[in-house]
């Protein structure tokens, strides 16, 4: 009798567990990230400690690099003054010709405080959320290159879908040849650019940028560099393996682009 009761309980629990994915459509989209928000501070403490400890062996190089970077900043500030003058002159001339000026892009700097628990998914957790102006589908960059887009957004935390995740799909353009294709994530192997024409002249070393098609990624953001070009499985198109510009697996800080 006890064994039968136990088996029944087991079956009932299993049924309940299997029903949850179907019931999940009735839950708020950002439920998981809002719960994860509770762990924002411990995640931040652990990741900051880890970054500091990871950099201790490279302390001397960091000091030397810091000196060079400070010098570069001074040089760049001089250049910035010159270009500001040129920009002001440009604005005056545009006003004279009554052109519409394009909007400036604002960035929200964020720290990477965690990653996806599963090794089969490629997402990162950043320490900014709705209260900092982050919204779903905002584009995330680092340095020169594209990192991904905001997939889920909580109050003080957000999850970013990386460009190398298998669920990531971006419309791209080969900068030199202007061939268009779709870049899909391929995990640790980078990205694959699909649907390149058979007459395409794409070569190893070509830079790939976002094409601007679709509502999410603006045109001109650098994605990566072509590593190899092959025929695809259907023999109707070429496909290129693209190495991301950004070192996706060693990110510590990112910038979220405000539209």
């Amino acid at each position, binding site marked *: 009798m006890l064994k039968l009761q136990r088996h029944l309980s*087991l079956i009932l629990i299993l049924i309940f567990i299997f029903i949850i994915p179907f019931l999940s459509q009735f839950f708020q989209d950002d439920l998981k990230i809002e719960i994860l928000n509770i762990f924002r501070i411990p995640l931040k403490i652990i990741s900051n400690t880890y970054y500091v400890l990871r950099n201790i062996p490279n302390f001397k190089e960091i000091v030397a690099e810091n000196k060079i970077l400070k010098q570069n900043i001074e040089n760049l500030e001089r250049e910035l003054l010159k270009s500001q003058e040129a920009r002001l002159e440009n604005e005056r001339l545009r006003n004279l010709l009554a052109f519409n000026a394009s909007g400036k892009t604002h960035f929200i700097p964020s720290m990477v405080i965690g990653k*996806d*628990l599963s090794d089969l998914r490629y997402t990162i957790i950043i320490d900014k959320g709705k209260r900092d102006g982050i919204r779903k589908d905002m584009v995330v960059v680092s340095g020169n290159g594209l990192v991904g887009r905001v997939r889920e957004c909580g109050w003080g935390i957000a999850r970013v879908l990386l460009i190398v995740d*298998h669920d990531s799909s971006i419309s791209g353009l080969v900068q030199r040849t202007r061939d268009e294709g779709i870049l899909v994530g391929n995990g640790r192997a980078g990205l694959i650019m699909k649907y390149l024409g058979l007459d395409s002249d794409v070569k190893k070393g070509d830079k790939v940028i976002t094409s601007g098609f679709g509502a999410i990624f603006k045109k001109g953001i650098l994605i990566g560099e072509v590593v190899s070009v092959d025929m695809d499985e259907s023999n109707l198109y070429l496909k290129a393996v693209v190495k991301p510009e950004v070192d996706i697996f060693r990110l510590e800080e990112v910038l979220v682009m405000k539209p």
Partner: protein
Amino acid sequence: MFFILAIIIALLESTIFRGIDILPVLVIFRGLRKGPFVGLLTGAGIGLIAEVFSSGPLGIDLILYSITGLFSGILSDRFYYRKDLLSEMIFLFLGLGLFYFLSLIFIGRDIISYRPIIITILFLAVFSPLAFRLIER
């Protein structure tokens, strides 16, 4: 206490211990030692913790960990499970094999391109029982 430990492990796996899956190992051990019912409940509890720390549709990690815990409990009931090192390595290998196989199916990834997972499974199956024995002492 056990689930607080699981939360701490999830925090560490999300930040420092990238590529080392300790949570499925915990579920399998619990299932092996306590039977299918406790294995299922432990899997469900840890599955809920994993849900919070991973992306993907709600419920997938819950199912994965629950099935793994249940399977480990059934294995220990059906086959004579002795609490010795070799048995634990074998059962852990089987449990992790099921966990990763189901992960690839549920998340929709190409199984063949994930052959390196065998190395992860072997590594965890060999070293986890040793680590647990050290902790228990």
